[in-house]
């Protein structure tokens, strides 16, 4: 099985965010909010790092 860089990061972000959301907050609402927050940060970090490397490469 082969995943490209982005899809691997996407899968990783999804599952890690679910675990973080459940384990780091007390109420269901907070869990969902924190999970989404982590997911956005993961993907945002990937995109920012990707563009930063693109700039460094030029």
């Amino acid at each position, binding site marked *: 099985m082969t995943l490209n860089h982005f899809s691997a990061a996407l899968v990783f972000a999804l*599952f*890690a965010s*679910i675990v973080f959301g459940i384990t780091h907050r007390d109420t269901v609402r907070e869990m969902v909010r924190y999970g989404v927050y982590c997911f956005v940060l993961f993907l945002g970090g990937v995109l920012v790092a990707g563009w930063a490397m693109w700039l460094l490469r030029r």
Partner: protein
Amino acid sequence: MANSTTDKSKTVPLQNVSAMAVLAPAVGWLIPGAGHMIQKRWIRGGLLFLSIVALFLLGLAMQGRIYRANGGDILDILGFIGDVGAGALYILSVANDWGQGAIALATADYGTKFMIVAGLLNFIAMADAYHIAIGKKK
């Protein structure tokens, strides 16, 4: 004065330590999410199980490497600690000699990291199950 060092009557009470406080993390380690399920947190346990098992199996499918117990390089030792967190999945993988890691594939390295992170996430889930068992978390 004679009994100042030998008096055993002043023992610290074991507050909030129940069988569940021991059982939940242990079961949670063996089967991801099971520590929550035995405390009737079915949905949380199910989601933890799904996430951790999926991450580990994806790592295997990507031909990631499973670290065996070793006393060599520090990164190998840390890799082993991460992997062993996956509990039964790790035991099953080692028993079947899975996870030999194809170095030629770039995605195999991702797979290795997926499995390590799955184990580390399971450690977090175990701690959460323990906190629920002792009443620290609702």
